[in-house]
């Protein structure tokens, strides 16, 4: 007898079969130039997306309906959870997150293939095959090794519920975005391999691949930032990025992906770095698979250990196979990836991009190495060396600083060659601003590193403003626009360049936030008896007492702290909490109390409460809100770059399609 949820499994299995057909049909359609088969393959991919949405809907419906006969639903939800967490539980575990990944992959594939369906038939044909093959892997794991629709021998009265650490608003946004980010690198990867297979890595290929890459980049950025925000208000150590292995592996594809976004500009303008670019693209996709392998295998100790499972080795196999196949393809095709021009000058823009790429790759490698080193040291020497935050700060810190400077100088360089005299002239104001900031910084704080960081930001900020200013000035001369108007038309006319500068501006804001919140942070741990006060910065904190509050499925232990600021009459209340969920009493989670003032955050974490006192860790994080502002601005800038221009995109259609 088939139950409703079995249909979910049927949808999955059907998708698998259709994907196998689509991958073969698409390949044959390219070789034999058969338009009928090509359409068939494309329609199959659309059909797969529909089937996956149906499968996902069955699972979501089972959660909402509280079907505790389904093993996955029983493990991750229960009757006392609010609806939004119940729905979020869909992607909280192994099977569900794989289903989420596969579904979003099928949807993004369908949309992308539909938009570019009239582009070069070889590229679209090969891409369809690659996308189908990747999809086959994920659905294979779902169907045979991680079935979300597995039923229990009998229905349970109630479920276990979501892991307490996941019962936070962050759960509603971080996993969907980060998983989608990981997943979406498959799209540019498919176009990349297709370009290699059809011996066509030219301008058209670049125009094709840029938007899917930007989409992936945006999703990954969003996922990473939201993960940081979540860690910030839950983990209670005052920061948002701890260089935890799982954070690191999510960061790796972002790093190589950003390098790729820059290197294809060199390929487009100067027809060099093709081999390098395609290697970066392959690395990015491979790292996305590697990342999910590390998270799901539990092979490294991390705060994300709840994602551990036994399908890790399938991902390892897929990672190794796809990487080996891609590398082989690149080696075979390397002859056709000849550079047309060379690097003549060290101050040419392409040289700047090359250095940019080398630094990104260096950061990626150092992060990768530090992440896997505990495994290596244990395998080779029986000693499990720990590589924690101090390592990454020391190694990556200087590299990021250099990158920051580069972000400022790069736009001032010209392609092929830069006139040294003109360059020095352009650099006069930024360098002066930099020097002034450096002197002020060292004078006020005595901290050279901190001052260097802020000064670098001021340097980059100045060059970006300069670029906008000179661009706008030219426009005001040649047209009737005023400055303000000119700036917005700059964004319209040369969206990529000035939108890119906007992204850089967001990065500067983000950097100021990071430097301020780590370099200028003040903190104290203190045990406070009831009704005692303490001061930190300009704030006076009074601990008035604690209470327990019983809720439906959890107990809250909250402390009340009354905050007053110097010279102000009004007070505010902060309630740092520790939360104990039924079924999970030994895994309390925290809710950090944060007041986001404009210039800084007041942040209080409750360590422990006893009969007479409570211990708190109190932080002042200056400028931390610029981290969230900068990140949001990055996404806004990305959307500006994406905004359709008035002219019809020529590369979406191709007269050579048969």
């Amino acid at each position, binding site marked *: 007898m088939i139950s409703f949820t079995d249909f979910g499994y049927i949808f999955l299995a059907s998708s698998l079969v259709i994907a196998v057909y689509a991958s073969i049909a698409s390949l044959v359609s390219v070789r034999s130039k058969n338009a009928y088969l090509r359409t068939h393959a494309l329609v199959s991919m659309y059909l797969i997306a529909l089937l996956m949405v149906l499968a996902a809907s069955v699972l979501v419906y089972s959660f909402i309906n509280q079907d505790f006969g389904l093993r996955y639903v029983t493990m991750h939800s229960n009757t006392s959870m609010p609806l939004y967490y119940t729905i979020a539980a869909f992607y909280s575990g192994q099977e569900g997150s794989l289903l989420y990944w596969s579904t979003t992959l099928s949807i993004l594939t369908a949309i992308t293939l539909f938009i570019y369906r009239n582009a070069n038939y070889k590229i679209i044909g090969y891409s369809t095959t690659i996308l189908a093959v990747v999809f086959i892997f994920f659905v294979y794991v779902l169907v045979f090794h991680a079935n979300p629709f597995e039923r229990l021998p009998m229905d349970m009265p109630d479920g276990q519920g979501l892991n307490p650490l996941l019962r936070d608003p962050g759960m509603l946004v971080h996993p969907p975005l980060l998983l989608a980010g990981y997943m979406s690198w498959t799209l540019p990867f498919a176009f990349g391999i297709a370009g290699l297979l059809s011996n066509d890595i030219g301008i058209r290929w670049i125009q094709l691949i840029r938007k899917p890459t930007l989409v992936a980049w945006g999703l990954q950025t969003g996922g990473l930032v939201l993960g940081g925000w979540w860690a910030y208000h839950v983990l*209670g*150590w005052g920061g948002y990025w*701890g260089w*935890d*292995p799982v954070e690191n592996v999510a960061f790796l594809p972002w790093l190589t992906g950003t390098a790729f976004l820059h290197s294809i500009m060199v390929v487009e303008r100067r027809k060099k770095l093709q081999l390098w670019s395609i290697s970066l693209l392959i690395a990015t996709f491979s790292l996305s698979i590697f990342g999910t392998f590390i998270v799901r295998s539990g092979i*490294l*100790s*991390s*705060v*994300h*250990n709840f994602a551990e499972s036994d399908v890790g080795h399938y991902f390892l196999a897929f990672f190794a196979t796809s990487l080996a196949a891609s590398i082989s393809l690149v080696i075979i095709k390397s002859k056709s990836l000849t550079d047309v*021009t*060379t*690097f003549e000058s060290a101050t040419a823009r392409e040289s700047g991009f090359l250095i940019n790429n*080398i630094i990104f*790759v*260096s950061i990626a*490698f*150092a992060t990768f*190495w*530090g992440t896997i*080193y*505990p495994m*290596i*040291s244990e395998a*080779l*020497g029986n*000693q*499990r*060396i*720990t*590589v*924690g*935050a*101090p*390592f990454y700060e020391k*190694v990556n810190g200087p590299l990021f600083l250099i990158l920051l400077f580069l972000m400022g100088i790069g736009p001032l360089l010209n392609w092929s060659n830069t006139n040294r005299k003109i360059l020095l002239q352009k650099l006069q104001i930024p360098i002066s601003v930099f020097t002034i900031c450096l002197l002020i910084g060292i004078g006020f704080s005595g901290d050279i590193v901190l001052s260097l960081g802020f000064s670098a930001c001021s340097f980059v900020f100045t060059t970006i403003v300069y670029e906008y200013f000179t661009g706008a000035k030219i426009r005001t001369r040649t047209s009737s626009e005023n400055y303000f108007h000119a700036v917005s038309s700059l964004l319209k006319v040369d969206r990529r360049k000035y939108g890119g500068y906007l992204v850089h501006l967001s990065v500067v804001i983000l950097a100021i936030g990071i430097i301020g919140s780590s370099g200028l942070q003040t*903190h*104290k*741990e203190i*045990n406070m008896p009831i009704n005692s006060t303490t001061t930190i910065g300009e704030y006076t904190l009074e601990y*008035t*007492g*604690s*209470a*327990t509050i019983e809720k439906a499925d959890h107990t809250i*232990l*909250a402390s*009340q702290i009354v905050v007053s600021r110097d010279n102000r009459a009004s007070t505010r209340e902060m309630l740092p909490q520790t939360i104990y969920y039924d079924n999970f*009493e*030994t895994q*309390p989670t925290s809710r950090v109390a944060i007041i986001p003032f404009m210039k800084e955050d007041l942040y209080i974490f409750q*360590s*422990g*409460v*006893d*009969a007479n*006192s*409570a*211990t708190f860790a109190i932080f002042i994080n200056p400028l931390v809100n610029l981290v969230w502002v900068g990140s949001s601005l990055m996404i806004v800038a990305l959307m500006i770059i994406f905004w359709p221009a008035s002219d019809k995109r020529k590369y979406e259609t191709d007269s050579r399609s048969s």
Partner: protein
Amino acid sequence: MVVLLSSFMFTSALNAAALETDPLQPNMIALTNEARSIALKLQCPVCDGQSIVESQAAVSVQMKQKVQELVDQGKSEQEILNFFEERYGMMVLREPPYSGFGLGAWLIPPIVIGSIVIWFSFILRRKNQQYKDQQ
């Protein structure tokens, strides 16, 4: 509405012995800034990827107490780190040591990157030469 505690959840007094057995003992330790910066460099031996500062595990709380004790005694950071390394092994250090297997962590990145950069400039120089010869 916050109601002041009338009955207390944790009536058992803070007892060092109780810490070892009861994972729910509240963490009442407040580290001085100096002790905290040292504690941030020590890994919790039983948790996943956390330093003893973030971890609420009983052993982390004990280690924090010890760090504060040693700091109060005037021990230096290196002496304190050595103390814990002797007892828990090298894995307790969040920063790889600059000796033995720890060196592998520090040296490989610059070696690999340096090699890539050198190899790159080599290839570029050769290509520039080829390009000039063709002119």
